[in-house]
């Protein structure tokens, strides 16, 4: 059972990674436009990110 000494921190670290990614995505404005990016990917002319 001593394996949980490693597993619990690993599980927490993974969860924390997800949380950090979530907070980063909010702060970088990825939730500002929920409709546009779905269409932008279809636009071949726009190769460079605006």
């Amino acid at each position: 059972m001593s394996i949980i000494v490693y597993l619990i921190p690993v599980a927490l670290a993974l969860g924390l990674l997800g949380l950090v990614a979530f907070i980063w995505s909010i702060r970088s404005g990825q939730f500002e436009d929920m409709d546009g990016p779905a269409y932008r990917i279809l636009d071949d002319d726009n190769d460079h990110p605006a």
Partner: protein
Amino acid sequence: MTTAVSTAPGCPSGLAPASASQSKSGFAGFVRKSGDENALDLVVRGAKCGGCLSKIEKAVSGLPGVTAARLNLSNGRMRVRWTGPLSADRVAQTISDLGYGVAAQSDDRAALEKAREERALLISMGVAGFAAANIMLLSVSVWAGHGEMGEATRKTLHALSGVIALPVLLFSGRHFFRSAWSALRNGHANMDVPISLALSLAFGVSVFETLRGGEHAYFDAVVMLCFFLLIGRFLDARLRRQAHAAANALAAMQTSAVTRLGASGETRSVAASEIVPGDRILLAPGERAMVDIRIVSGISDVDESLVTGESVPRTYSQGMVLHAGAINVSAPVQGEALKVAEESLLSQIGDMLEAGEQRRSAYRRIADRAVSIYVPFVHATAALACIGWLVMGASIPDALMIAAATLIITCPCALALAAPVAQVVAAGHLFSNGIYLRSGDAFERLAEIDHIVFDKTGTLTLGIPKLDRIEVDGQSFPLESAEARECLADAARLARVSHHPLSRALVAVAGPGQAQEDVQEVAGRGLEADIDEEVWRLGSAAWIGADADAPVAGPVLWLARGSAPHVRFVFVDDVQPGALGALDTLRAGGIDMEIMSGDQAGAVAPLAGRLAIEDWTAGASPQEKVSRLEALRAQGRKVLMVGDGLNDAGALSLAHASLAPGAAIDITQSASDAVYSGGLEAIPLILRVANRTRNVMRQNFALAALYNVIAVPIAVTGHVTPLVAAIAMSLSSIIVTLNAIRLRIES
């Protein structure tokens, strides 16, 4: 493969109608400069699909010097950056020429504040969600290991849970603690008081239990409570921000620049907000007055349909005061600004708005009523349970534990989600139908409506005159006949140079063609030009010297061509398409209707007859509209006011609920609960959705109450374990959420 870009105006998918291309000016006042880079924030209306996105961004990016052009499809905001001499007007013109509505967006501090609040709530919710999932992982092991797990292992798992829960409590819980504290400081209790109490008591008891090596710790419940409550808060904040942004975008469509005259007569285009009293302003034909002005020089016809409801323009001359919202029609005038733009309303309308706001904020929402019952009930139950167990000989920690369990299990999760989820789902449904809601509690007021008061011009009617028939010597010709076409073509030659609504209506029927040169426009009278050595005149009966016998309903124009017989053009203000059907639906729903118009009786009576509305008032002043609403309120009627004019603003804010069409001016929109685009069909839809939303909200509160009836006895008798609390809490929240989502499925 390259994407083909449509050249037809407007949305290539046909999801929104194209706007007519207008000449755009005055955007220079909204440009922000940093170094040599210019930035302009715009609101684009009518962009709905990927085609719009690429069409607009490509056209703007193609302008010289543009470094970035990015359109946000969700809210229609567009930010353009450029270097070099490109004019802001050209950017706006480019978008307008593509068939989209465009307006400048000035800094909106309230919107920024709301966006920041929403983001803070979302991050808090994310943190609470992360912690809830991880603590649950540990808690499930404790529950599963019940009876088998050693005390040391359990203590470790509890301690670990506590370590995860503490930062969450402090970070995510700060929203509740702060709000509870400010409420308590003001001497009253809100929903956040029992929440804060439950959070801190449950956390404290759990820490104590963990140290003691006890079996039950409520860390999972603390964090889950935070998580569920923050979902409700977040949805509520997002709804309010969306409503605010939608109203703002509509308002931005109407703000425009003002031409200010300098001391030496030079003109400068500035944002309306920069105007101070005493500034000299030039109002060109076709322009809308953004501030109240006193006319210093010039004489012109002015279209006041948004200010007074009058459908025919009036003549203004030197010394007269022109109110904001009026459109100058015939000749340029110079005026002196009397007030700044924000105050530029009839002051009495401002006062009425305030009175209405106060009355409306006094409205008790279902949620408020539920909380006012809930808060004392929960506090009393928890306190009684604690005292009861102490009296029966339980130890202080055990009694406190039961009180904490009571507070947790009666947690207002379901209560906190009951209203916001239903409102978000319903508002989303209305939004996709072009209806912008300005407040969430409007649903409850809209659901109670039993009487509707309509404004006429622009609400029941299109607000734009339409040519009805042409008469020569008392004989009427259909518009398609050769005689009529000829008269029309002649009149249009004069009318093409004029901004007068009747001239525009003539030209709309006549179609494109040649405009006559050297046409004189005389305010209040008409147009005049010399054609083939003859004097041609288009205007009032007095202007051409005709006998104004046989009065008709609706405005008329006369045409005199030298010695040829006089021609009379008769106009009507057409009923909104779909109005009859919409009114029939409302009538079938048992709702009384009446018309209160500022227009003359001759214009109101035939319309009322056509729409089969028996109750109508003509020539009503803003005060009369307000006093009529007061009278209806005194009779206990729940009145819905629908209007678009400045003269309706007071009445709109005073009514139980109010709606404004999308074409209304901003002050009217901000006085109303919802803004609809499209026809009157929106009104029955809004009322139907409001009714269903209210029902779902009531069901949700009933479910939450039912849940408490079952849960409280279990808690008070001391049978609640953390496992029971976790299941009960999630189950009640999920049930109310699913019930609210039913609204979407049914529609």
